[in-house]
């Protein structure tokens, strides 16, 4: 997986490419740990994300909990597989998906 990062003022946009799974989710966790401070608008662009497993869900949930306190979080451009994972796990109710 690769992470493309765009930071403009307090808006952080992360474009993920590849697979967000057990092997790659520590990368995203480290990126967030490093960048999320002071961010009021967090955007995940999943246009190039192939799939997500529970390891990735864990990171999104942690990010959502942080953003509940300091701003907003949006996940956009999810493919059919990712949308289904969100649906099945109830994440479609706790995340803002555009």
């Amino acid at each position, binding site marked *: 997986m690769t992470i493309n990062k765009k930071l403009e003022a307090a808006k952080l946009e992360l474009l993920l490419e590849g*697979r967000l*799974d*057990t*092997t790659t989710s520590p990368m995203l966790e480290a990126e967030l740990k490093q960048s999320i401070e002071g961010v009021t608008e967090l955007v995940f662009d999943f246009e190039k994300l*192939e*799939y*997500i*497993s*529970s*390891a990735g*869900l*864990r990171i999104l*949930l942690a990010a*959502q*909990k942080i953003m*509940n306190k300091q701003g907003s979080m949006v996940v956009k451009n999810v493919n*059919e*597989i990712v949308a289904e*994972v969100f649906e*099945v*796990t*109830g994440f479609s*109710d*706790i*995340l803002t998906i555009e």
Partner: protein
Amino acid sequence: MKEITVDAMIENMNTVTAFVDDFLDQIACPMKSRIQINIVIDEIFGNICHYAYKDSVGAVTVRVESGNTPKAVFLTFTDNGIPYNPLDTEDPDITSSSEERKIGGLGIYLVKKNMDEMKYEYVNQQNRLWMEKRL
């Protein structure tokens, strides 16, 4: 039928996934099913790596087979680690808010939703998890 045995280490995840993908290519498995199977491998192999052998290193055998009536893929994971039946895992509460949300059990739940049938047995000090995905 194809089978691979590797150490239960996250570093071997890509090897196992590539091994299974190769088999799925040969049987012309549809892309969506293939990705769902990739997710299942991530959850099950990941679990075994994290929990089966505690601090020591043990082996995992992954077998992949296909069937024709109906067309299906069968995946079997075998390890010699501590007995663990993933089918005993309680389904998570998927309706709670982000603040109350627990992450435990989500992986197995995803596996259950992605596969059509699962069987677990503990025989000869081995965990054996068998799964069927209809194509």
